[in-house]
C-alpha cells in the first residue's frame, strides 16, 4: 500500500513539467491570448494612425448629420433632409420587408415543389426535380440580374401596362395595385384580429385538453378560420367600413409627359424589389423543397403502414402521423434557410435596391466612416443569426425525442 502511494505521489515529480497536459494547456491558451492581444493592438494602432491621416473622426456622431440622398422605397417617413441614422433605419426596414415577403413566398413554393418531387406522377416529379437542380446550380446573383435586367426590362413601358383583373398593373415602373386607406375607427379591426388570435389559442388549448381526456375531437381548423377571418370582417362592417381601397390612376390622355400612372396614388412595388424578392424566393424555394422532401422521406414507411393498420385514413395519417414527425427533421434546416435568405437579401446592392447594405454603402461613400458602417452591418446580421440559432435551440429542446 505504501509503495503504491509513493509511486502515485512520485509520478508527477518524475514527469517533466513540459509533458503535463494541464501545464501545456495553460501555456497554449496564454500563448493564444497574447498573440490575439498583439494582433489586436497592431490593428488598432494602425487603424487609428490611418484614420488620423485621412482626417476621419471615428465615432457615431455622423449618424445625426443630414443624409442628402433620396431613397426610392421606404416604409418609414424619410426625405432628403433626414439624417444618416434614419436612412440606415429605412434600409434596415427594407431588408426586413424583403426577408419577410421572400420567406413567405419561398416557404409556399418550397413546400409545393418538395411534395411534388415525391409525387407518384412522373411528369410532376420530373418537373420538380428539374426546377430544383436548375435553380440550385445557378448563382443567386445571376438570377437576380436575370429577373431585373432580362425579365423586368421586357415589360411594357411607362405609358402602357399589363393588367391582371384590372386591379394589378405591371409596367417598367413596377407593380401597382390598390392601397388600403385607413380611416378613423379602423383600429378596431386590428383589435378584433388580436382578440381573434388570442381566442383561437385558447380554444385550441381547450380542445386539445378535451381530446386528451375524453377522446372527442373538435373541428379546430374551421373554428380558427371562422374566428380569424370572421371577427375582423364583422368588425369592419359594424364600424361602418372604415377602410377604402385607393386604386392606381392611369392617365391616358393629356400631355405625353403626364401619361402613365399618377405618382403617389395606389400602392407601387418598385422593380428592384420585385426582382430581388422573386429571385430570393425562387432560389431559396429550391433548397426548401429538398429539405421538405428529405424530411418526409426521413419518416419511415412503417409509420404509414402502422397508421393504416390502425384504420386511420390517408388524410389524417398525413396530418397526424407523418407531418408532425417530418417537421422535427424539417424545421432546423428550414430556419437556417430563412436566415440564408435574409443574409442573401444583401445582394440588393447589386441592383441598387435600398436595403441595409445598399444604403449603408452610400453612407460609407459619403462619410468614409467604414468601421462604423461595417460594424452596423455586422451587428444587425449577427444579431439576426444569433436570434435564429437561439430559436432553433429552443425548438430542438422542445421537439427532441423524449427517450425513456
Amino acid at each position, binding site marked *: 500500500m505504501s509503495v503504491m502511494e509513493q509511486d502515485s505521489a512520485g509520478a508527477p515529480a518524475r514527469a517533466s513539467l513540459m509533458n503535463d497536459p494541464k501545464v501545456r494547456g495553460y501555456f497554449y491558451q496564454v500563448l493564444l491570448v497574447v498573440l490575439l492581444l498583439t494582433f489586436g493592438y497592431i490593428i488598432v494602432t494602425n487603424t487609428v494612425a490611418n484614420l488620423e491621416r485621412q482626417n476621419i473622426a471615428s465615432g457615431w456622431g455622423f449618424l445625426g448629420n443630414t443624409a442628402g440622398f433620396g431613397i426610392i422605397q421606404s416604409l418609414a417617413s424619410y426625405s432628403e433632409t433626414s439624417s444618416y441614422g434614419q436612412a440606415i433605419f429605412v434600409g434596415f426596414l427594407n431588408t426586413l420587408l424583403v426577408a419577410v415577403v421572400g420567406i413567405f413566398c419561398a416557404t409556399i413554393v418550397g413546400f409545393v415543389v418538395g411534395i411534388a418531387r415525391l409525387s407518384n406522377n412522373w411528369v*410532376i416529379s420530373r418537373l420538380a426535380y428539374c426546377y430544383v437542380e436548375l435553380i440550385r446550380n445557378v*448563382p443567386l*446573383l*445571376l438570377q437576380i440580374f436575370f429577373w431585373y435586367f432580362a425579365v423586368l426590362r421586357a415589360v411594357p413601358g411607362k405609358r402602357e401596362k399589363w393588367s391582371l383583373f384590372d386591379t394589378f398593373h405591371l409596367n417598367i415602373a413596377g407593380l401597382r395595385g390598390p392601397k388600403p386607406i385607413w380611416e378613423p375607427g379602423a383600429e378596431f379591426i386590428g383589435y378584433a384580429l388580436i382578440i381573434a388570435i388570442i381566442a383561437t389559442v385558447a380554444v385550441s388549448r381547450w380542445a386539445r385538453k378535451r381530446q386528451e381526456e375524453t377522446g372527442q375531437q373538435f373541428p379546430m381548423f374551421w373554428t380558427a378560420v371562422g374566428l380569424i377571418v370572421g371577427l375582423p370582417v364583422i368588425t369592419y362592417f359594424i364600424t361602418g367600413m372604415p377602410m377604402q381601397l385607393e386604386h392606381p390612376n392611369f392617365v391616358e390622355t393629356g400631355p405625353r409627359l403626364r401619361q402613365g400612372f399618377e405618382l403617389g396614388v395606389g400602392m407601387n412595388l418598385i422593380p428592384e424589389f420585385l426582382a430581388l424578392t422573386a429571385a430570393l424566393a425562387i432560389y431559396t424555394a429550391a433548397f426548401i423543397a429538398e429539405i421538405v422532401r428529405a424530411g418526409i422521406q426521413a419518416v419511415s414507411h412503417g409509420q404509414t403502414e402502422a397508421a393504416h393498420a390502425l384504420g386511420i385514413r390517408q388524410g389524417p395519417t398525413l396530418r397526424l402521423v407523418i407531418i408532425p414527425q417530418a417537421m422535427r427533421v424539417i424545421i432546423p434546416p428550414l430556419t437556417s434557410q430563412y436566415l440564408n435568405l435574409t443574409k442573401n437579401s444583401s445582394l440588393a446592392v447589386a441592383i441598387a435596391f435600398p436595403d441595409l447594405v445598399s444604403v449603408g454603402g452610400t453612407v460609407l461613400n459619403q462619410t468614409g466612416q467604414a468601421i462604423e458602417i461595417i460594424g452596423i452591418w455586422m451587428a444587425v446580421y449577427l444579431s439576426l443569426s444569433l436570434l435564429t440559432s437561439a430559436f432553433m435551440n429552443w425548438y430542438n429542446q422542445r421537439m427532441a425525442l423524449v427517450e425513456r
Partner: protein
Amino acid sequence: MASSQMFQIRTEEAPTLPAPVSTTGVIGWMRQNLFSSIGNTILTVIGILIAYWIIAPFIQFAFIDAVWTGDNREACLPQDGGHSGACWAYVEAYFPQFIYGRYPSVETWRVDIVYALFALLLVPLAIPSVPYKRMNAILFLIVFPIVAYFLLTGLVIGGTVILPIVETAVWGGLLVTLVIAVTGIVASLPLGIALALGRRSQMPIIKLVSIIFIEFWRGVPLITVLFMSSVMLPLFLPEGVTFDKLLRVLIGVTLFSAAYMAEVVRGGLQAIPKGQYEGAMALGLRFWPMMYLIILPQALKLVIPGIVNTFIGLFKDTTLVLIVGMFDLLGQIQSSFTDPTWSTPSQGHTGYLFAAIVFFVFCFGMSRYSIFMENKLHTGHKR
C-alpha cells in the same frame, strides 16, 4: 364410357397467360404513373403544358432563332420586326475575354497550362480507384499552387524576366472565378480543420475563440465580408503597405469559407466513435499523431460530400466579387454589355444564358460527384 366421363384431368400445366396489356410496357407504365386517376390525369396535362411553355420558347430562343455567326450587332438584330434569338456570335467574339479576362493574349498559354495541370491533377484525385492518392494530394495541394502562382503572375529571377509579370488587375472571367474558388477552398481546409479541432478542444479559451470566430463569419453575409476586405483591411495595415485587390478578396473569402468548412469537419469529427480516440491513446499516440494518423483520415473521408457542397456554394458565391469591382465570369459578361459593337436586344439574355450554362455545368457536375461519393462512402447500412 366416353359419355360417363363428366370430368377432365389436365395432365400438363396450363401456360401462364401474359399480363394484361394495360399493366405492362409503355401503356401500363403510363396508366400507373400518369393517368391512374382523374386528378392524376389533370396533373399530368398541367405538367406537360408547363413544360411545353418553358421548353418551347427556350428552344426557339437558343437554337431556332439563334444567330451562330457574325461580326457585329448587324447579324443579331431582329429581322423584320420579329423576335430575335440568342446571339451566339457575340459569345464567340467575347469568348477569350470570358475565359481569360483582359489577360494579355500572347501570355494566355500560361493560363491554359494552369487549367490543364489543374484538370490533370484533379481527375485522378477525384476518382477513388486511382492509386498514389497521397502523392497526388501533395502535388495538388502544395506543388500546384506554387507553380500556378508563378505561371499566372510571372517570374523574375535576379532581374532576368523568365515570365513577364501580369498584374492581377487584368485578370478576369473564368480565371478569376476559378482562382478565388480553388484558393478559397484549398486555403480554408487547413484553417477549417484547425478551427474544428479548436471547437472540440478541452481548453476553454481556445474553444471560446474558435466558437466566436466560426459564429461570427457564419453570421454575416459574404457581401459585407467583401466590403470589409476591400474597405476596412487597408485601414488595418501600416502606412505604405498595400495589398493586391485580388489578395484582399482572397483573404476575406478564405476566412469566410473556413468557418463553414470548420462546421463540416466538426460533423465528421463527431461521427468518429469514441473508441477510435481511446484506441489511439492506448497505443501511446499523442494528440497530433492521433489526429493525423487515426481520426482525421476517417473524419475527412466521411465529410467529402460536405466539402464538395461547401465548394459548390463558394463557387457560386464568387460572383459576388463583381460588387466590389472585380471581373469574374459574371462581371466580365456584365461589363461586355456596355460594348456598342454587340448591343442588341438579345445580348443580355444571351450573356446570362451563357453564364448560367457555365455555372450549371460546373455545379451540377460537382453535386453529382458529391452524391456519387456519398453512395460510395455510405457502406455502413448496405449489405
